[in-house]
């Protein structure tokens, strides 16, 4: 079986070189925070399984999660785009919101607490296993140093 069976080159194009440049650009942009936010965390929800071998990306994903974990439950300005009856409609919306707020605020703040707790738990698990792996690696190095030379 010839291992070189499928070797082929294409004049002028080098995918690996282009990918190396893309990865450099991505790393720089990540550092600058260009890819932070809930949007990115959402985009990766189905890709997490494929990232298990990519330790750096897990850090980035956790950072995105930190950005996304707390939803904004503060009051917001109520507007009306339709000109006709605008003041009346705004007043109606404010009344409805005033009634709903009492219930939804409680629900959303609880959801925020749950989100925060889940994130903390994930960070703890991550830290625990990183520490464990580090100590095991150190132990292996120590044990290997005791082996007689081959």
């Amino acid at each position, binding site marked *: *079986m010839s291992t070189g069976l*499928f070797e082929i080159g294409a004049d002028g194009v080098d*995918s690996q070189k282009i990918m190396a440049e*893309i990865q450099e650009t991505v790393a720089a942009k990540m550092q600058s925070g260009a890819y932070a936010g809930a949007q990115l965390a959402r985009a990766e929800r189905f890709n997490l399984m*494929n990232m298990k071998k990519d330790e750096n990306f897990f850090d980035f994903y956790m950072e995105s999660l930190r950005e996304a974990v707390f939803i904004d439950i503060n009051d917001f300005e109520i507007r009306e785009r339709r000109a006709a009856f605008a003041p009346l409609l705004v007043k109606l919306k404010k009344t409805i919101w005033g009634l709903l707020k009492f219930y939804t605020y409680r629900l959303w703040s609880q959801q925020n607490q749950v989100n925060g707790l889940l994130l903390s738990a994930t960070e703890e698990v991550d830290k625990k296993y990183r520490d464990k792996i580090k100590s095991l690696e150190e132990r292996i190095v120590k044990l290997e140093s005791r082996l007689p030379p081959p």
Partner: protein
Amino acid sequence: MSTLPRIAFVSPRFSEGPTVGGAETLLRQLAERLVVKGWQVDYLTTCARNHFTWENEILPGRVSIAGITVHYFPVDSGRDLDTFISVQNRISRGAEITRDEELSWQKNNVNSQALYQYLKTEGHQYDRIVMGPYLFALVYFSSQIHPDRTLLLPCLHDESFAYLKTVREMFLNVKGWIFNSEPEQQLARRLYGLDISKSHIVGMGLAEFATDPAAFRQRHQLNSPYLIYSGRREPMKGTPILLDYLEVFRERTGVDMKLVLTGSGPYDPPPQLAPHILDLGFVPEKEKHDAMSGAVAFCHPSVNESFSIVILESWLAGAPVLVHGAGEVMLDHCRKSNGGLWFRNYPEFEESLLLLLTRQGLRESMGKAGKRYVQAHYSWSSVESRLLAALS
């Protein structure tokens, strides 16, 4: 006539149209090439068409199709689906299961006692028996009948099923293996410790075709750039990743990038993306190739491919590809051909797609490089010579 080599292919379904998977298409194509070469080719399969219900829809018996004698055998009734699904779910989750549990999963998988009986009584007439794909019980039990003349064409992926003890036993029990790519061959060596000198890489041949991207755009009034994906739409194929990524891409970059889909399967696009998807369903090959040729890239987000016919088709259509970098087979195709880029996460997807979108020259060069790769290694003449070497 009796001196002609005789071969049987064994597979759960016979490819009669676009509704079957790549493995069945591959087996049928190889069978047809051997007919042309003068071999006597039998194809042993089940009466099922639907890979969810496995209902017997075709009458049992023998039919000659394109020179192949297709033997249809009924799927066994009385499957214990509760046991099957419960064990399958545990395997999918990567849970530890015993060999007995694996066997109960195999016994309640798709089986055909009639087919096994035929192989027992008639199998000795065949010089070679080629069977696949690996994760069907029909292949597992068939491989035990005449292992000395059986070649496995597994279409192997790095997934939890590949780690089963029974699957390992099947690989070690047969005479040889036909792989579709080097990464698949290496995976089998790593998982089962195979002596890969007994294996061959064959793949599937593709014939060249002409395309008309302008006509496709006109037919569908497509004035924006688009990505294309062809094939089954399902989580295992990475469809949800593509949908999420494209939605975020549109949001972040403001580029009106559309998505053209051909093939089948339900999917659930984000609401903002839905109006920008052109879902053509099953289309004639010509329509698919026209669609591919006009795309910014063919995007394949799956990490579970053992060959990927569609990305080779895309290269023949002149379009570069954008694949998931965790899919070793497609990554290997891209590295060797220089016909595509890859991504492991959203940021890489965004950067790669923007590059392909804005650099027309690069896009064309990559499409051409991919085409040269297919012409050099996946023309039927080169595939045939590798297939004959494998069977000898």
